[in-house]
C-alpha cells in the first residue's frame, strides 16, 4: 500500500483547555503514576516476604518525607483514577453524555478525589502514625 498523507485528528494545541480534556489527560497521568505504584506495592510485598529486617527498611522508606509525598500522591492518583474510571464506565454504558452531566461528574471526580485524599491524610496525620 502506498504511503499517503491521510487526514489526522486535530492535535493537542487545537483544543481549548477545558475540564473534559484536562481530566482525560489527568486520567492518563494518574494511570502512569499508578503503574509505578504497582511497582512499589510489589516491592513492599517482597519486603514483607523477606522478613522483619527488609520490611522495616521499606517501611522506613515509606514513612520518610519523600515516601509520604509518594504515598499521598498515589492516594490521589488512585482515588481520581477510580472515580473518573467509573465515570468512563457510565459513558461506555451510554449514560451521562449531556453537557451538564459531563461537567458535574467531572468536577465530582476531581474534587471528590482531592477531598478524600485530604481527609485520609489529615486522619493519618492526626492519628500520629
Amino acid at each position: 500500500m502506498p504511503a499517503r498523507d491521510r487526514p489526522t485528528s486535530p492535535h493537542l494545541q487545537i483544543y481549548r483547555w477545558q475540564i473534559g480534556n484536562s481530566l482525560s489527560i489527568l486520567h492518563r497521568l494518574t494511570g502512569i503514576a499508578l503503574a509505578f505504584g504497582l511497582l512499589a506495592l510489589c516491592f513492599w510485598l517482597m519486603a514483607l516476604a523477606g522478613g522483619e529486617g527488609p520490611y522495616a527498611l521499606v517501611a522506613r522508606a515509606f514513612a520518610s518525607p519523600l515516601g509520604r509525598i509518594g504515598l499521598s500522591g498515589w492516594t490521589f492518583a488512585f482515588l481520581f483514577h477510580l472515580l473518573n474510571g467509573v465515570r468512563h464506565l457510565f459513558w461506555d454504558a451510554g449514560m451521562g453524555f449531556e453537557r451538564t452531566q459531563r461537567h458535574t461528574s467531572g468536577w465530582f471526580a476531581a474534587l471528590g478525589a482531592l477531598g478524600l485524599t485530604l481527609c485520609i491524610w489529615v486522619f493519618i496525620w492526626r492519628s500520629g502514625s
Partner: protein
Amino acid sequence: MSLRSPMGRVLGLGSAKEGTAHWWGQRVSAVALIPLTLWFAISLFMLPALDYGTVRAWLSVPLSSLFAVLLVAVLTYHSYLGTTVVIEDYVHSAGSKLLSLMLLRFLYVVVAGAGILAILRVAFGS
C-alpha cells in the same frame, strides 16, 4: 478465486490491527479492580498497626492471600493494557515501539511474578 472468507480477509487490517479485545479487557479488569483495590485499601486502613507482625498475620489468612494474588494479577493486567496504549501513542518509530512494548511486557511479568511469589511465601509461611 480466493478460498478465504471475506471476514478472514479483513481481520487484523485497519490501523489498530486488532478487534475490541484490548478495549474490552480494560473494562472488565477495571470493574474487577473496584472491589479488589477498595478491599486492599480498607483492609490496610482497618489494621491496628502496619508493623511486620500485624501485616504478615493479616496477609497469611487464606482469604487475604487469595484477594491479594487476584489484586496483583488484575492490577498488572489492567496497568499493562494502559501503559501499552501510552507507548503506542507516543513512541513513533516501528523498531523502538516494538522493543519498548516487548520490554514493558517482560517488566510486567517480572513485577507480577515477584509480587505474587511474595504473597504465596507469606501465605505458606516460608
